[in-house]
């Protein structure tokens, strides 16, 4: 259990908050873990009061952050197993490069959540910032596996360069969701314009009407389709795209009834 004591104004870089790092460490050792507040090297114990004990393996380790840590970045970076539950909201890069295990955020996550994710599960009960499940700057292949579920809304470019795995936004996604996507499944409650721009593969399901780009062509109408292994109830229009790209094999399913 980590209870936030204070949050530095300049932001806290704490990729050590991960079941892989906590496993097999004593309470004292966890308090001593290195974090960065700007360019100052500090201890995790300076910002969180640590209680309980960690299990021997990451699989059995469960970390609870009892409060909001909006200024703490990189929680659960590269985590391979175990569970992190955050009672409030988190900062940028939550669950980036995650390989396994589960992160549940009861509040909202800032931008770049689930960046380059490879496996595991990220559940956000509030909203997500921009670049949910994106590729890192300069990379063109993004998230490759695992699952992200956001119960609220997401910012721009959700599923940017998605290359596998599943991203679900139950609320509304801002523009350019699924931009330059290559494979995988992106499910959106509703979406602002330019869904799937420059996509070359994979499927996007939009559960409400949306304004598609002129480079998407209606190919058929289907009822209760199974898309990437998931069944969706209702009638959907299926669009092929993005036809401005070479060899584009992407599909956008828009629910009409």
């Amino acid at each position, binding site marked *: 259990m980590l209870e936030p004591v204070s949050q*530095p*104004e*300049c*932001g806290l*870089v704490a990729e050590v908050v991960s079941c892989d790092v906590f496993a097999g460490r004593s309470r004292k050792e966890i308090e001593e873990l290195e974090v*960065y*507040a*700007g*360019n*100052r090297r500090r201890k995790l114990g300076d910002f969180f009061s640590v209680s309980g004990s960690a299990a021997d393996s990451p699989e059995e380790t469960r970390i609870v952050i009892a409060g909001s840590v909006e200024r703490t*970045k990189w929680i659960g970076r590269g985590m391979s197993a175990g569970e992190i539950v955050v009672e409030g909201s988190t900062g*940028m890069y939550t669950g980036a490069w995650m390989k396994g295990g589960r992160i549940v955020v009861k509040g909202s996550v800032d*931008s*770049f959540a689930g960046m380059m994710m490879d496996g595991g599960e990220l559940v956000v009960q509030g909203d997500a910032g*921009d*670049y949910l499940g994106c590729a*890192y*700057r*300069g990379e*063109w292949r993004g998230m490759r596996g695992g699952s992200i579920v956001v119960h609220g809304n997401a910012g721009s470019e959700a599923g940017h360069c998605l290359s596998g795995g599943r991203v679900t936004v139950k609320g509304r996604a801002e*523009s*350019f969701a699924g*931009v*330059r996507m290559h494979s995988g499944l992106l499910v959106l409650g509703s979406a602002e314009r*330019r869904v799937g*721009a*420059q996509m070359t593969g994979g499927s996007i399901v939009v559960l409400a009407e949306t304004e598609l*780009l*002129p*480079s998407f*062509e209606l190919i058929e109408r289907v009822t209760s389709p199974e898309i990437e292994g998931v069944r969706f109830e209702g009638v959907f229009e299926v669009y092929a795209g*993005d*036809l*401005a790209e070479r060899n584009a094999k992407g599909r956008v399913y828009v629910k009409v009834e």
Partner: protein
Amino acid sequence: MSLQAPERLEERVVVRDVGCTVCGCLCDDIELEIEGGRIVQVRHACAMGTAKFLHATGDSRLRHALIREDGSFRRAELQEALDRAAEILVDASRPLLFGWSETSCEALRVGIKIAEEIGGLIDNCSSICHSPSILALQSTGLPACTLGEVKNRADLVIYWGANPLASHPRHLSRYSTFPRGYFRERGKSDRTLVVVDVRRSETARIADRFIQVKPNSDYEVLTVLRMLVREIKVKAERTGGVSMEELKELAEMMKSCSFGVLFFGLGLASSSGKSWNVSAAIKLAADLNEHTKFAVLPMRGHCNVAGTNQVLGWQTGFPYAVDFSRGYAWYSPGETSVVDLLARGEVDAMLVIGADPGAHLPRKAVERMAEIPLIAIDISHTPTTMLADVVLPGAVVGLESAGTCYRMDDVPVHVRQVISPASEVPSDEWVLEQIYRRIRRLRG
């Protein structure tokens, strides 16, 4: 060759081929007449360049260091102000060094050294102008060319979301449209000028063809153009307010020219769609290279904003928004870019040089600048120096100090020293080097 201390000369001196360090055109054919150390006549420069040259030796220059005490400035000894600046930067846990677009690459090189030494952040003006273009060229590539190639070869010149007659007044006459080139002997008569914009700008009025798009629909228009160039059927009759006939004609013009160039401004890079608009423009140019030679270039604003990306690029691997807080270079626009950092309140000290963020950043970011210790290096008072705690005088690069600047097409131009600095410092590079030495001393 520089002409030292001409103020000692009684007579009028004419200096030719002076570099103009105002906009990204970086014209290097300016003639100055100097009398008694003052510039009295400027030839060949546009209105913006003339104003800067006349201001440089005018009365409104910042000549001495200033330190804020109890809310107002007092004149300070240069040494004291340099000491204070170094202390501010060493004491900060997330210091930001911002600006650089109107100073030399040599000064920026010292700035990067300071950022690395103090574990700070370094960002430049492209963060708030062409950063979408940079993100696009990083993910898409850039079929670019130099302005010399445009002058000698281009027979189709397109300005998209740019109004160079106002922003880069000599761009058309010196590089793109009017000059006679090796293969374009008749100048304008050998070229077609097309402007795509949301309004009929000054440049649009002199264009052979003007295409008016609805605001924030550039991405759709570019997407349709890409499809037309590749002969993919488009079902829509109009896109972004433009008829399919007009777009088909434009696509045909692009395919049939012998050397085309698309210059894009912030109208494309900073309207809805941002980096993806630029990415679509780049992909359009790439597709066109299957039919003809086609290049795409951003209309960079300041005289050395392209140079900041070059120098940061070769020193740190990243073109802007670089964070050294953990000892190595980390780049993530959205996290490490100036507006995001200030608006989130992460930055706890800031140094500004060769830019005026106090006038140009969003209100929330400027409010943060007012809260934290701020050092400004500038040639005259600006909204930024008004918020500063320490103000250090600078020297105009290309007039009072020599240095390297990169033109908008990434061509480096050496600019000379022509007159002695109006302030008490020899160059911006020197000021930064003094701060760096003090930082080294403070950190032991």
